[in-house]
């Protein structure tokens, strides 16, 4: 693996192996001193052209726990404000000796473009509506570890509720969840579904009430008001009536069902219930798992080849 740009770049075997590596990272994170020397001498630049709290801090924490050096770039305080181009920015950082770029940008395809300007590894930390591969991996990790089947989601029903159209999280997650065998139901008004979901192995529902009682995972998305510059055929009131998670709806979740959300949460919009009051909520576990999964990704990009075959004996 040279870059991680999209979940489509990974086979299911590769995903399962990354999640297994994340188990090792989780053990490290459970220690009193959660740090190993694995990536000593490597420099990782986190290059964010768009706001972020958890993804950025999660990647930076992951890098530090593997003993990598972290270089932090944020567009708002950089020479981008003096008109420096994206390409010049990347080439400048590359000249400083960066081994991996973790990139977030509001335009789809920017991480891929960056691979043409540097020899360093590039990790997509979210590009426009396109992809957010590490989010899908940490969600897959959270689901498989909660349900105890590490290699498959076969037979699980996962409802993804909300603004699918503008969501890179939904695109990445639908790909990974369906390929791991889950039945994915997209719950959204027509205006917030992508214009074409042909080729997506999913079904749809038009209100949260249709699904809430019989899902294994209820995956709530954030209403992305900053991406909704076009006028949509639905008012916020209409939206919350049909798609928000209320206390009454949360009470109808099955006892084993998980409540997940990629964050940040819009309290009072899609989340009208306090998630800490929902027993199945794994929202903070997703955040903790994010560090382990990103450690696994950074390690497999920079730490050398990984061989799945563990053999008994012979090693010295």
């Amino acid at each position, binding site marked *: 693996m040279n870059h991680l740009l999209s979940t489509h770049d990974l086979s299911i075997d590769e995903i399962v192996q990354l999640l297994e590596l994340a188990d*090792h990272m989780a053990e490290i994170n459970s220690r009193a001193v959660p740090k190993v020397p694995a990536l000593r001498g490597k420099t990782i630049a986190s290059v964010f052209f768009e706001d972020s709290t958890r993804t950025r801090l999660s990647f930076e924490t992951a890098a530090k726990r593997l003993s990598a050096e972290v270089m932090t770039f944020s567009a708002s305080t950089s020479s981008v404000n003096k008109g420096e181009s994206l390409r010049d920015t990347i080439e400048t950082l590359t000249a400083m000796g960066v081994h991996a770029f973790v990139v977030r940008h509001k335009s789809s395809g920017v991480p891929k473009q960056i691979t043409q300007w540097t020899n360093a590894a590039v990790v997509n930390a979210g590009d426009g509506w396109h992809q957010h591969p590490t989010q899908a991996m940490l969600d897959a990790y959270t689901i498989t570890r909660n349900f105890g089947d590490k290699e498959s989601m076969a037979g699980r029903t996962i409802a993804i509720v909300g603004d699918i159209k503008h969501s890179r999280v939904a695109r990445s997650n639908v790909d990974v969840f369906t390929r791991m065998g889950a039945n994915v139901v997209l719950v959204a008004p027509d205006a917030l579904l992508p214009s074409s979901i042909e080729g997506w192995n999913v079904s749809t529902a038009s209100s949260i009430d249709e699904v809430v009682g019989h899902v294994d995972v209820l995956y709530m998305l954030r209403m992305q008001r900053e991406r909704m510059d076009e006028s949509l055929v639905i008012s916020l009131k209409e939206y919350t009536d049909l798609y928000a998670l209320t206390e009454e709806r949360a009470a109808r979740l099955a006892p084993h069902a998980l409540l997940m959300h990629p964050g940040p949460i819009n309290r009072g919009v899609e989340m009208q219930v306090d998630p800490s009051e929902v027993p199945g909520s794994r929202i903070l576990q997703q955040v903790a798992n994010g560090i382990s999964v990103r450690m696994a990704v950074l390690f497999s990009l920079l730490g050398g080849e990984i*061989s*799945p075959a563990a053999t*008994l*004996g012979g*090693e010295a």
Partner: protein
Amino acid sequence: MSIVFPSRTEILATADIDRAIKRISHEIVERNTELSHVVIVGMQTGGTWIAERLAKGVQQIEPSSSVPLGAVDISMYRDDFSLRPIVLSAPTDIPFDLTEKTVVLVDDVLFTGRTVRAALEALNDHGRPRAVQLAVMVDRGHRELPIRPDYVGKNIPTHFSDEISVGPDGVFVTVVEKGQA
């Protein structure tokens, strides 16, 4: 050009391994008068089954003792990521603090000593042991670091390119002829 087949020779049989484990168990008890401070930690993956057997062996000799058993994965501590692929084993499992404990670190084969170096570093992240003792089933020589074992099943002089396999069913050496991969 004649084809040379690699020869696989049995060095220890199952019974020899059982005896070696019994003997090392006795040596552990003999050397550690305060058995309550001893913990046994196997190196993933090759050392874990030997560590389990040693823990049982010690228990049989001193039935009142109970020696905690752990496993350490060193893949995040290696110094040769660029040279050899990482073999994904099971994660580290050390559910106790090692501070002030005497750790018996167990592996199947002692060769260059590099995995032991990595394991020592890994152990330090779980506390500061009072002492670390090293038990191996086979010492095959060719050390690259100042590391020596405290308990040895069998010393087997080998060529650097020979392959050794260790399991409950025996120890085998495969001589790899020069020119073969």
